[in-house]
């Protein structure tokens, strides 16, 4: 079966890859492009570990085909820091101990960034509902929610 040629922008860089028709965007990111920061927890869109942005929209990359990425702008965890400067959310996750094992962390960070781009001043409830698609089994979410609220305040300059 012939593979499909896909051209996309990932974290600002133009990338090209070949993929089978049934391969997910998640598979392509991890296996074709070597971007293993995006994680697979369920492959059914229930855990959010594979969260990326596609043209600015938050997406479970396990629910999108690689071929659908053609011509799109993809954002992954590897593109979140600016050079050696961590994104405020990344910094606040470390400061608040908002991760234990760390497997869900990339997905949470991508989802939280997406929230703050839409709602720079979220309430605790808004944070909890926006992040309800991301499962964490270690933290009980307490420190994650605090880290997101604190990062939001910092970004706002509050």
């Amino acid at each position, binding site marked *: 079966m012939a593979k499909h040629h896909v051209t996309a922008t990932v974290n600002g860089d133009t990338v090209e890859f070949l993929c*089978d028709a*049934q391969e997910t965007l998640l598979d392509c990111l*991890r*296996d074709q492009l*070597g*971007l*293993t*920061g*995006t*994680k*697979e*927890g*369920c*492959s*059914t869109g*229930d*855990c959010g*570990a594979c969260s990326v942005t596609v043209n600015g929209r938050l997406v479970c990359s396990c629910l999108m085909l690689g071929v659908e990425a053609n011509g799109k702008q993809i954002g*992954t*965890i*590897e593109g*979140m*820091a600016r050079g050696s400067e*961590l994104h405020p959310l*990344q910094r606040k*996750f*470390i*400061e*608040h*101990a908002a*991760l*234990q*094992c*760390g*497997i*869900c*962390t*990339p997905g949470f*960070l991508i989802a939280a960034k997406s929230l703050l781009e839409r709602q720079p001043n979220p309430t*605790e*409830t808004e*944070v*909890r*509902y926006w*992040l*309800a*698609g*991301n*499962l*964490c*089994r*270690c*933290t*009980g*979410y*307490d*420190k*994650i*929610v*605090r880290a997101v609220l604190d990062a939001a305040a910092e970004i706002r300059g509050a």
Partner: protein
Amino acid sequence: MQEKVKEPSSEFEYVGHRPDRPDGVDKVTGRAKFGADLAMSGQLVGKVLRSPHAHARVRAIDTTAAEKLSGVKAVITAADFKDQPSEFIPAGEMMINYRDVVRNVMAREKALYEGHAVAAVAATNAAIAKQALKLIKVDYEVLPHVIDVVEAMKPGAPVLHEDLYTAGVDPAPKTPSNVAKRLEFVLGDVTAGFKQADVVLEREFTTKPVHQGYIEPHACVASVSEDGQADVWVTTQGHWIVRAHCARLLGWDVSKVRVTSSEIGGGFGGKTVVYLEPLALALARKARRPVKMVMTREEVFRASGPTSGAHVRVKIGARKDGRIVAAEAELKYQAGAFAGSPVQPGAMCAYAPYDLENVKVVGYDVVTNRPKVAAYRAPGGPISEFAVESVIDEIAGKLGVDPIEMRLKNAAKQGTRAAYGPKFGPIGMVETLEAAKAHAHWRTPLKKNQGRGVASGFWFNIGGETSVSLSLNEDGTLSLTAGTPDIGGLRASLCMMAAEELKVPLDKIRVQIGDTGQLSYNFLTGGSRATFSSGMATVEAAREVKKEACKRAAKLWELPEDAVEYTDGAVRPAGPNAGKHNPMSLKEIAGIAGKTGGPIAGYARINAAGAAPSLATHICDVEVDPDTGKVSVVRYTAIQDAGRAIHPSYVEGQYQGGVAQGIGWALNEEYIYGDDGKLQNPGFLDYRVPVASDLPMIDTVIVEVPNPRHPYGVRGVGETPIVPPMAAVANALADATGVRFTELPMSPPKVLKALDAARANGAAKI
């Protein structure tokens, strides 16, 4: 008596503070490599064929067509593994039997649960591997199955193992059954005790199997060279354990197998056993290519171990003043397909928080056609303690005694003899109860449709074999290598203890988790032992470095060794007769190491003794929707004795995470089986773990009653937090509704049904 964590700790320079974890940046940037993140050159994809039947004899397996498929490089079945003799070996908090392990990784005579592995293939890509699985023909003779623990114990139930005879009964049974073992712990005389009681209450409880729910599925990559050198990269709680199991199952020398632990994406006990690793090695040996295997989420649910579902009967007698005079429990725990449920620790924990004279606990370990259970955070404890804490609450209510006062009246203390044998050293049961009583949460008024519950919990914690090396580098920095995988901040804690000992800045110490070739044996990260045991070994290794540094200075200064001391990160002459020498920093000592005797390092190889129990008391407020039966936890406070919190943020995180898992166990999570013996909810959509919008902030109070057997007073903290929540939620729900719930999960349909029934007879409060 009670010490709370000071912010920051004034006692120590590093311990008790909250520095950033050393592996934090790797984990927020995607740089950290987990089980599925490694690719070896030329690797194949391995996939497993699993039984579609709950119970079936495997008459024959024909792999010919699969082997012929282009791109398939190896196919294996049970025939590729030598059979193992039956022998129970202690493995931390659980027991293992290689006769069963070899059958669990690959079904031999019978498939014992839906999802049981029967064959595996390695192919050049996933699509070919999946196609090959379809070409394997298995001739099954389908047998009647049994899923429920009570059904499995009945005479005439389908028998899983024709050679399983109940151990621990006299006379020994003459016929096989599904009851693998009966055990009993007795203290005093319960019959006499119940005679002194003013009130006796007996209740039966059922709990469902629940899965650890780690977000990272099992994953590994294995390679085996032509001369038999094997390498495994794997997500595991213990890579020495993986090495031991794989070497045993494959019949290889231990030294031939090197296992590297990846970062681990959650385990909670579930990654203390092997599933894919021996298969990947057997496939790699056959194919002579590296083989990568990753479970799907569905495979994780169908084929890896949850904890037991159970049936529990509890009977407690108390005097009017709340003093318990007799306590009984009968525990029936599902082990899954092979013997070895956590009923023993469950029985030991049941009444452990209390100082009682008359206790009798009987336990049964029962096999059923489900995946073999694995350890899950305080294995066995949450089940028995849910039942006990529920009955204590109900008795307190009947007697009109405050539930915290009732627990205080019966609390275990230093010197209390537990029903399971030992006398406790210093423990924090009273301190957590006092902290609960003093907490504002306990006194805050409730709103409409709300109720408040309190429950306590106990877990032993363990020590065990541990190795740590600490090298002083030539520039005075240090490299610390530990062997217990870092599952939630271990590197930070070890770094802090080493820094405290040596009085060097945290960023001068880099901590890595070594592979099995880099250190001597390490038992796994489990039993809440990693910070305790690896911490103890780290302190010992650091003290060795200090001693060696003094020795080198003594040599240089031509002094006896005891005339040099290590203080504030430098060696200096000790006492007035040692002469005048300028102190030498660790950096300076490192610089002269070559000339004074060679490299400087500490290497601790210990069997960490003195692990001490951690006790907790939790307060929970729920709100019940009277129309739907939905229960929401609206406020929660977890109070627990940490001994000493090395990094308080990660101790709090353990409390909060355990509470969240416990709330899931209480309200939502369960394995749902059809009449066909097949699991109906093997995914996160239908097996619903708590999400952020289900939970409130979880308040924590760290009580510190130091463990005298650890250099910094550490107890384990990871497991106890999951023990109290089920009873705390049930007790809160009883307070809100006037209805006592004895069956988990307390999901909306069950709650609504019970509320409707109670409303019909006027017993409901809402």
